[in-house]
């Protein structure tokens, strides 16, 4: 019913369980050939949004459409049943049917679409080959490793060419080591096959690595959406800034505002930063700076604060240092020799974002 080449559009989607609102008016667009990540903490509504698109949850209000084909529209009373939506869904647990072979798991969607037997064979074999599963067609799911099961689940969701593939935490069931490889493999697959995909994840690194666009959800609302680079480097809110990377937080008060600069004063520090969002002199505010933007220095200077090195943690590719400034604990990356001799930390004003604390 829906063909590739149309965007998936979600408009003002609301959903609640009893009195508990899960989605509070979410809107988004997924262009053809694009990968969008739904990012958020647990309970943010990201999986519910995905399941609503699939038709497995029933929203109370809103509209979901792919091009002209309306999947859900509360105003028009449209709610297309799951099986008629022609979407692909990769489950977090993979949900392979244990009583069917790999081949039969993948072939099921084609058989339901009354594809001729010969073509089913060709297309399943093609899909399995694409995913590097050619030799495993006759195995049963329990005879496969976790990584192989994941590939079967993906093959099963792709084989009938759905306009959009939905993926619910596709990597979370894999070992940490395997996950990084699978991430690269999955991104390559998506690019190679030109897929449109909506991917749920709670891991911001995964979201940034895999997607063209990120939707950050916070308690059923979109906090911010944009390209990974946008989200990481130009967060609109403190929540986004804190969610997207590893940070130091400096609570204080804004005492002065100059052109594109705000002066943040707190317990033992007085630093110029970059205001994000509306802010005024006298506001309570929090300074946020990414760990990798911290600099160490031997001498005092502009935007430098005296700090004492507490300990260094060797991480392999780098070291993480913990500094003490009064009651504050600040972390930064660097080499040990640098840090040991340093008496000062430099927080470049462009990298220190200042967010007003909501009253």
């Amino acid at each position: 019913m829906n063909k590739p080449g149309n965007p998936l559009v979600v408009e003002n989607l609301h959903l609640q369980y009893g009195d508990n609102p899960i989605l509070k008016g979410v809107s988004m667009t997924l262009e053809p050939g694009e990968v969008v990540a739904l990012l958020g903490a647990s309970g943010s509504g990201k999986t519910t949004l995905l399941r609503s698109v699939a038709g497995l949850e029933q929203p109370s209000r809103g509209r979901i459409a792919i091009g002209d084909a309306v999947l859900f529209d509360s105003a028009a009373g449209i709610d297309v049943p799951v099986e008629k939506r022609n979407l692909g869904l990769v489950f977090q647990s993979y949900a392979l049917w244990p009583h069917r072979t790999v081949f039969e798991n993948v072939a099921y969607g084609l058989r339901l679409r009354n594809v001729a037997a010969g073509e089913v064979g060709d297309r399943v074999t093609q899909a399995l080959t694409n995913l590097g599963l050619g030799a495993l067609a006759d195995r049963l799911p329990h005879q496969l490793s976790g990584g192989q099961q994941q590939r079967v689940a993906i093959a099963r969701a792709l084989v009938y060419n759905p306009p959009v593939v939905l993926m619910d935490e596709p990597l979370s069931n894999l070992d940490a080591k395997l996950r990084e490889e699978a991430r690269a493999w999955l991104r390559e697959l998506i690019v190679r096959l030109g897929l449109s995909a909506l991917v749920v994840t709670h891991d911001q690194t995964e979201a940034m690595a895999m997607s063209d666009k990120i939707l950050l959800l916070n308690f059923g609302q979109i906090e911010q959406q944009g390209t990974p680079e946008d989200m990481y480097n130009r967060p609109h809110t403190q929540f986004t800034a804190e969610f997207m990377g590893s940070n130091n937080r400096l609570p204080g008060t804004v005492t002065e505002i100059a052109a594109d600069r705000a002066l943040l004063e707190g317990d033992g520090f007085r630093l110029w930063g970059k205001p994000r969002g509306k802010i005024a002199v006298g506001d309570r505010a929090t300074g946020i700076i990414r760990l990798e933007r911290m600099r160490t220095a031997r001498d005092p200077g502009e935007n430098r604060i005296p700090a004492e090195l507490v300990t260094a943690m060797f991480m392999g590719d780098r070291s993480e240092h913990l500094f003490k400034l009064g009651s504050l604990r600040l972390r930064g990356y660097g080499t040990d020799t640098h840090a040991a001799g340093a008496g000062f930390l430099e927080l470049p004003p462009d990298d220190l974002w200042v967010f007003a604390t909501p009253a």
Partner: protein
Amino acid sequence: MTSRALSLPRSTVVALTAVAVLAPVLLIFWQSFLNAPFFNPAHKFGLASYAFIFDDPDFWSALFNSVVIATGMAVIALPLGAALAFLLTRTDLPWQRTIEVLVLVPVFVSPMVLAFGYVVAMGPVGFYSLWAKDIVGDVPWNVYSLFSIAVIAGLTHVPHVYLYSSAALKSLGSDVEEAARVAGANPLQVALNVSLPMTMPALLYAAVLVFFLGFELFGLPLVLGDPEGHLVLATYLYKLTNKLGTPSYHLMAAVAVCIIAVTFPLVLLQRWLLKTAGKYVSVKGKATRQKMLPLGGWKWVALLVVALWLAFTIVVPISGIALRAFVEQWGEGIKLADVLTLENFRQVFDQSDQVRAVVNTFLIGTLGGALAVGCYAAIGLAGHRQHGAVARILDYLVLIPRAVPGLLAGLAFLWLFLFVPGLKELRNTIFSVWLAYSVVWLAYGLRLISGALLQIAPELEESARTVGAAPSRVLKDVTLPLIRFGLLASWLLVFMIFEREYSTGVYLLGQGTEVIGSMLVSLWGAGAIDQVAALSLINIGLVAAGLAVALRFGVRLHE
């Protein structure tokens, strides 16, 4: 999955279930408020029946006996069942696998058969009694006293407690016990301070269950209580049939309502306990393979106690029946070798009604069992992944037959077949017995089905939906293939339960509706001991065959 419009098959199943469950119960209530049987045109509404039974001292003594026996059963079965569960799940007691199977035997043997077994083995002239008399000069026990009935009922209900407490102990992660050991507790302290409190909800549930079963008790007090005239509520009701010389349905209905007034709150209590027990499940730890507690020399003591219990609850009654089935007569001064015979079985197979009873019992277990599992599966699937009204209605519907003991259910179905025009023809077919059996065991059957359905993760069905399968296709291609083994296992268990059932068929017994269970009650009443013994042994054989097949296929004998 979200619930959308209620489909036609689903609402049909719910409606049929509601009729099958509610019609007999409503009939009982209605009849209890009449002053004469409903088919008597002169009947009037009123509380006359209640007034009659409340005025009858026999009713009060039956109620008293029921409470005494039920309490006694709980007091005896609870500590023994819990200890047995601990021994079999947490210690290195020898021959655990064998004992685990033997423990369940009393659950599957008909109480009527067991009771008869105690009479012929330990009654005043029973085999063991006479042998004991030869040795000590007197029979040192009296199985007909109220105390003995409570002890026998208690000991034969140990498996019920064992089942629930061992399930709780098995699901209790060993890490919480190991944590106590590391903190400095010895094995006994671990058992008393950690394992016992954490399995308390299950034990409490088992206690209520045993008390409830004690209230329903019919076969044991019917056989063992008769000689000294000890009545319990169910046997009081049974004897009422002839109290006034005419069918006194209105009085029986009033007693039935009194029994349900006790059992229904107990069922609700069990349900509530089961729900609260759930909160302990959430704190359970990881179930890793744990080291069994070494009993050392105590293991032989423990084994002896378990063996004594098994001897008393299984060996004594069943050997008694087996012997009695092959002797012409038995009494003082008779030598066993002189009276051995196959005559009892020849008699059974000479009587067309008894042959029919054997055939019907086999058919109701096999075909009837399959049909019942089919119905249970339909009901289970109607409520599957439903969270709205359907699930709640089914949930409560299932509770009702649980609270109605088989004897009453059989009575209610008899009335239903007499009362509803068009059903009269079915009354004299085995269908009437099958329907009553299926409704009586509805809760049990549904628990088996939902156990199988719970094994299916929702994603397995959701993924079929997203791939493009309509709900009916999902049922055919995913759900049913995945519960196939569960359905087969349910069939075997329902077979054994249907072979064992006796009280439900009592009032439905007629030409064409004979089953071994109700036949035993009737023959016992007529004093035909020889044929009771032979039929009992045949019944045990049928159950044993089912048990053997179940064990062969690795069916879990309890949920």
